[in-house]
């Protein structure tokens, strides 16, 4: 293990702010966001790419932070749930989640919000089928999805009006 590089210094741009961090190349972006930068809103449920709890936006697109090394994020814009949250109160999507009871334990919620936010930016007028398709890579064990889908559709309606 001695010939392997140890830590390297990288600059990460997360939620619009620059951070300098020393990381091992093998550290997953999810770990660095959570444990180096203290952005614990991004959750980890499998580290296998399946559950979607760790989803963040990379250059505006939802990607798995557990399937990316932090070193790879240098030079890209990372957005986490904290970056989608206003200083006070809730974003329209977050407010719709609350109004529609789209969360129970809340563990999947940041990944859902990040994915749904990206969907609505790309397609402000999605059908139910499109919402379900976009969220199909995000597992929720509590809600059965219906209220999440309702919340996203409601946020889309709000956004149009």
């Amino acid at each position: 293990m001695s010939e392997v590089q140890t830590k390297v210094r990288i600059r990460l741009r997360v939620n619009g702010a620059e951070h300098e961090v020393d990381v091992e190349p093998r550290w997953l972006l999810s770990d660095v966001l959570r444990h180096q930068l203290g952005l614990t809103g991004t959750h980890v449920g499998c580290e296998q790419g399946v559950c979607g709890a760790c989803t963040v936006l990379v250059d505006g697109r939802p990607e798995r932070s557990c399937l990316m090394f932090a070193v790879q994020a240098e030079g890209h814009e990372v957005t986490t749930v904290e970056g989608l949250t206003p200083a006070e109160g809730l974003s329209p999507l977050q407010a719709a989640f609350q109004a529609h009871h789209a969360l129970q334990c809340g563990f999947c919620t940041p990944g859902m919000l990040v994915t749904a936010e990206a969907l609505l930016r790309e397609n402000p007028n999605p059908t139910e089928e499109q919402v379900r398709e976009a969220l199909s890579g995000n597992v929720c064990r509590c809600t059965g999805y219906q209220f999440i889908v309702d919340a996203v559709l409601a946020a889309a309606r709000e956004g149009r009006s």
Partner: protein
Amino acid sequence: MTAEMLKPKFTGARVSRLEDARLLRGQARYVDDIAVPGTLEVAFVRSNRAAARIVSIDPSAALRLPGVRAVWTFADCPITIKNRGFQVEQPVLAKDEVRFVGELVAAVFAEDRYTAEDAAELVQVKYEALPPVLDTRAALTDAPRRVHAERPNRFYHKVHETDGFQQAFANAPRKLSLTFRTNRQTGAALETRACLAMPDPASGRLTVYATHQSPHNLRAQLARLLDLPENQVRVVVPEVGGGFGIKAMFYPEYAILADAARKLGRPVKWVSDRTECLLADAHARDAVHELEVAFDETGRILALRDHVYGDAGAYPFLGYSGAVGEAGWATDMLTGPYKIPEVSIEIDCVFSNRAPTGPYRGVGGPIGAQVHEGAVDAVARALGMDPAEVRRVNFIGPQDFPYETPTGGVYDPGSYRESMERALALVDYERFRRQQAEWRKQGRYVGVGMCCFVEPSAFAESEAGSIPYEAASVRMEPNGTVTASFGLGPTGQGHETTMAQLIADQLGIDVRDVVVLHGDTDSAPFGGGTGGSRSGTIGGGAAIRAGQTLRAKLVKMAAHLLEASEEDIELVEGRAQVAGVPARGLTLRELARIAYTDIGRLPEGMTPGLEVLVRYQPPLAATYSNGIHLAVVEVDIRTGLVRVLDYIVVNDCGRLINPMIVEGQIHGGVAQGIGSALLEELRYDGDGQLVTTSLMDYLLPTSHDVPRIRVEHLETPSASEGGFKGMGEGSLIGAPGAIANAVSDALAPFGVFITELPIRPQDIVHWVQTGA
């Protein structure tokens, strides 16, 4: 009293949740979000053998790795979980022998998790293979060997037969037999289990953060195993990312972490990875029911005989075995909503070299419901009757309550037939049947399945503990806001909102003025935690009683200060006032100020302050919710894949505290039931290796798999305070049976009848091809 006549403002309303903002903003704190400087991270070495003798464990290479602080084996942490009821001992780190793949063998403590995993790989364990016990039937006769040398594999045997069974069974005009099997599944909460233990050097106390459903239970178990007084242990349960029963149990990791924190003098943290979860979190189900049904030509079921075989895995959990829990619940509820007078039940539970089984939402309920609903549908098919009609013939009627079941339960009133009729109307049953016939002609196989269930809730005994009451501590602060505290252990059920709704209504204040605390044994009153669908009913009862007690004091104060009689005082919108003369009143804020800081104005003899602690025990040993799930599915007979087209739930859990939260609970349970019926299976191979060790193999339902669910509520109140009944589990109890019956109905032209879950597409294709 006037106040009681007012319609409650919050109870029964779709109040949006008070806990949501922090969760949505990404600010909630789950165990792994808590960072304590100096924390060591733990990685475990787990057995990769189902059964083997440990020849040697050599940690030296691991210890040489920079950043590694300690590697423990049993010798370093000689704690044994003594499960006297089962005559089995479980060392928290395997000693001499391993008994399932995933069992803890060694613990590595390092400066970070990456290093800890590097070191865990370097721990050399030498095993000598033993023949694994994997076949339940063979295990009954201790073949090929005993899992625990000191005791037979069969550790639980129970027989219950009603006096009239033999005669009723012998004389029955018709009989049929069926073998039901539900394979291994697990709760798979999205947040994995985690624990952070730290010593407090100043006080010498131990603080343990854990994802758990019952803080006080965990404290008691830790204190006992580590031989510490309970006041030296503080358990804090922060935000929990789903529990579903898994997190109600005590696991060896917690004892190791607590011990390590004290012996190493540093905070230690372990966060389970998903593979560890699938290997070693409580597995569930894994039971076989050999059922015989005696009935007559009218469809009336006269008697049921059920022989249950349950697999407990290698060890029981502390004080609880999933196999016994599953079999017990399933057979206690064997007659479901039906007036079946005679039963004969036999249960055998064995140890095996698989992971321990424990609770998962609904425990034996889903299997029990699948068994009685399968029986009803099989009778219908045998007689050429409509399944709904057979249910009508057998339902317990309104005149029968309280109804004593042949297994000793006493049902309080419910809406058994009514809920079914409602669901049939919602799906337009007659029309559906006509349409179904039409579809069949076109080669489309669409079926409808019903599952009528009775959900026992709020028991004296549940997996979360065995206390039949719950406590609420409610304090009005000097500025009139309220802080309440419970011994509950919510994992997403929204207690901070529902309990606040109940208290706010008692005190006539805004729900947002009530803060509900839970999870910290230093501040929460002793309680049983959350499990067994007990929190709404028992915890809710405690909240109401505590609110009433506090209200009584406020009313007394107000009457004194306003020179009115207590009967005339009402609490509305943050004021205590004389009914009909709102001008004659005081704000609660003013009353609270007086109660704490102007106590000279209190009535003669009244103690200062506004703080109550109330324990509430419901009048009945259990209260029974009921309902029906009705699923419409389409089976593609060419691929065996099943799609759920429509889903209806008519649910009766007594009075509703918050219909929105109840619906959320129902949706979630239905999703899990769809997983249980169609996707989820923990599979072992012939060597006892778990082959489903990732979420690529253990398939959880996604947004594509769960359809829109239509929910209607009926409200038959219970005798408990508030009229509530528990409902956290019914949705998972009803769903698997409904899906199974719907698939059977769809495939009726091929003579297929589903008895095994999950339903595998390859089997459907096989049955259709061979007409089995």
